[in-house]
C-alpha cells in the first residue's frame, strides 16, 4: 500500500467516503472549489442546491466519473486518484449509482440491463442471474413480466426503479442517487423516496442523494449539505453554505438556505429584470 493510502487510512474514523479540497474545473469554468466533505458509514446524506451549483459533478467526482482538477477523494481510506484501472474497477463494484434518467442501455432488455453488473463481474449462470434479477426487480416493486421489455417501453418511474434494481443487484456498500425524483409526479416521487428508505434499511447501505426536491431531502436524509453556485460567491467564501441535520436546516437563519427551502426566487427576479433591461439598452445602443 502506498504512503498516501496508509495516511488516508490513518485519518479514517468510521468515514466511508471523504473528499478533501476537491476542485473541479471544465475549461475556464470552475464548478467546485475546495470542497471538503466526509460521509460516515450508514449515513444518508442529501446534497441540495440550485441547478448548476455542481451537485452532480460532486457526486460523479466521488466515484471517479469526473476527474478532479485539485484535491482528492478517498473511499474507505483508499485515495481514488492513485488507483490503477483494475483497482478502480474493483472499487466501483462496491458502489451503486442511480442516474438522473436511469441511463438504461436502450439496446438491452430490462433483464439484461439489471443483470449487466453480475455478468461483468461474477461468473454466474443464466438461471441464477434470472433469479437475482427477478428478486432485485421485486425489491423495487416491479413484476417479472417487465424483464423482457426494453427501456423505451417503460414509464419514467418504472425506468428509475429499474435503475435502482441495477444499482443494488451487486449489493453495494454505498448508493449514489442523482436527482432520483426529478421529472416524476408527486406520488411516484414518494414511491421512489420510500424505496430509497427501504433499500437503506434492508441492505444497510450508506447513501448520498443529490436532489433539489426539498420534500425528498427532508424525508430521506440524516444530514443535509447545501452547495451554492461559485458565480454567486466571493473568492474566500465556502461553497458549502450549510451542513447539518434536517432539524437544523429548518431552523437555519442563512437567507440563501431559507430561500431555497421555501422555494422563493427573492433577488433573482430583480436580477432577471436588470439583465433584461441591460440587454435592451445594449441593443438600442447598437442600433444607434
Amino acid at each position, binding site marked *: 500500500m502506498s504512503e498516501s493510502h496508509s495516511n488516508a487510512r490513518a485519518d479514517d474514523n468510521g468515514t466511508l467516503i471523504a473528499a478533501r479540497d476537491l476542485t473541479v474545473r471544465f475549461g475556464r469554468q470552475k464548478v467546485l472549489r475546495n470542497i471538503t466533505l466526509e460521509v460516515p458509514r450508514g449515513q444518508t446524506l442529501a446534497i441540495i442546491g440550485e441547478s448548476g451549483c455542481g451537485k452532480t459533478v460532486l457526486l*460523479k467526482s466521488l*466515484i*471517479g*466519473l469526473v476527474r478532479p482538477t485539485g484535491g482528492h477523494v478517498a473511499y474507505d481510506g483508499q485515495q481514488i486518484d492513485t488507483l490503477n*484501472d483494475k483497482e478502480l*474497477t*474493483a472499487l*466501483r*463494484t462496491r*458502489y451503486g*449509482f442511480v*442516474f*438522473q*434518467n436511469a*441511463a*438504461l*442501455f*436502450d439496446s438491452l432488455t430490462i433483464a439484461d440491463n439489471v443483470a*449487466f*453488473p453480475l*455478468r*461483468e*463481474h461474477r461468473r454466474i449462470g443464466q438461471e441464477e442471474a434470472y433469479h437475482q434479477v427477478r428478486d432485485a426487480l421485486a425489491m423495487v416493486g416491479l413484476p417479472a413480466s417487465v424483464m423482457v421489455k426494453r427501456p423505451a417501453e417503460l414509464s419514467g418511474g418504472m425506468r428509475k426503479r429499474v435503475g435502482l434494481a*441495477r444499482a443494488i443487484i451487486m449489493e453495494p456498500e454505498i448508493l449514489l442517487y442523482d436527482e432520483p425524483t426529478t421529472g416524476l409526479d408527486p406520488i411516484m416521487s414518494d414511491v421512489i423516496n420510500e424505496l430509497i428508505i427501504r433499500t437503506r434499511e434492508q441492505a444497510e447501505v450508506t447513501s448520498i442523494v443529490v436532489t433539489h426536491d426539498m420534500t425528498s431531502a427532508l424525508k430521506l436524509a440524516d444530514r443535509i449539505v447545501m452547495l451554492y453556485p461559485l458565480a454567486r460567491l466571493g473568492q474566500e467564501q465556502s461553497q458549502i453554505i450549510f451542513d447539518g441535520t434536517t432539524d437544523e436546516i429548518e431552523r437555519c437563519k442563512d437567507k440563501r438556505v431559507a430561500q431555497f427551502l421555501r422555494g422563493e426566487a427573492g433577488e433573482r427576479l430583480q436580477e432577471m429584470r436588470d439583465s433584461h433591461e*441591460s440587454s435592451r*439598452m*445594449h441593443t438600442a*445602443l447598437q442600433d444607434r
Partner: protein
Amino acid sequence: MSTGSASIDRRPPGFFGRLSEGVADIGEITLAWVESVGDITLFAWQTFAWMVTRLPRKDTLVFAFYQIGVRSLPVVALTGTFIGMVLAVQSYSQFRAFGLETQLGAVINRSMFRELGPVLAATMLAGRVGSSVAAELGTMRVTEQIDALVAMGANPIRYLVVPRFLACLFMIPSLTIMAVFMGVVGGGFYCTYVLNVDSFYYVNNARYADANWDLLYGVFKSVFFGAAIAILSCYRGFNCLPGAEGVGRASTAAFVQSFVVILVLDLLLSIALDNVYYFIWPEYAV
C-alpha cells in the same frame, strides 16, 4: 448607466491588431487539431490494448458483426453492380473508337479490384455504419449510458469500441469482395447483353489481364479503411457534445472525416503497394 457603455471599446482593431488576431486564430486551430490527433491516437491505442487483453463477450461480438457486416451486404452489392455498369457505359464509346471494346472487361475488372471495390465498400460502410455508430455512441454519451458503464466497473472501450472495431476490420474484406464481384458481374452483363460486346473475347481478355495480386491489393487496402472508419466513428461518438445538435454533428463528422481519411489512405497505400509489387516483380517496373 453611462459607465457600462463607456467601458466598451468600439474602435475597430488596427492592422497589427487584426494580424495578431489572425495568428492567434491559426494557432488555436492548429493546437486543437494536434490535440485531436493525439486524442484519436490514444483512443486507437486503448482499443488495441483492450483487444489483446480481454475480448468482449461472444454475443456482443456476434451482434456487432451482424449489424456492421451482414446488414451492409445488400447496399454494397447494389452499389457495386451499378458502378460496374456505369464504368461500362462511360468507357464503351472510347474503346469502341479504337475497336477495343472486347478489352472493356479487363479495364472494368481492374478498376473494381484495385480501386472502386475497396473504396466503394468503405464509403458505404462509413455512410451506413460510421454515422450510425457515432450517433449511437453519441446518444449513449448524452444520456449517461457510457457513464453508467464506467460506474458499473465496465470499460466502455472494451464493451462498445472493440466489438465495432473488430466487426469493421473483419467484415470489410468480405464487403469489398462482394462489391468487386457484383461490379464485375454488372459490368460484364451490361457490356455483353446491352452493348453486345462479344462475350467470349470479353471474358478471355479479362481473365488474362487481372491477377490474384489485384484482388489482394484491394482487400489489403480495405482492412485499413475499416480500421479508420471504426476508430474515427467511435471516437466522434465518445466525444459527442451535449444535445441533439451534438449527436448530429458527431454523426456528420464521423462520415466526413472517415471519407477523407479513406481517400488519403487510398493514395498512400496505392503508392506503397505499387512499390512492393515492383520490388517483388522488378521485370514489370516501368
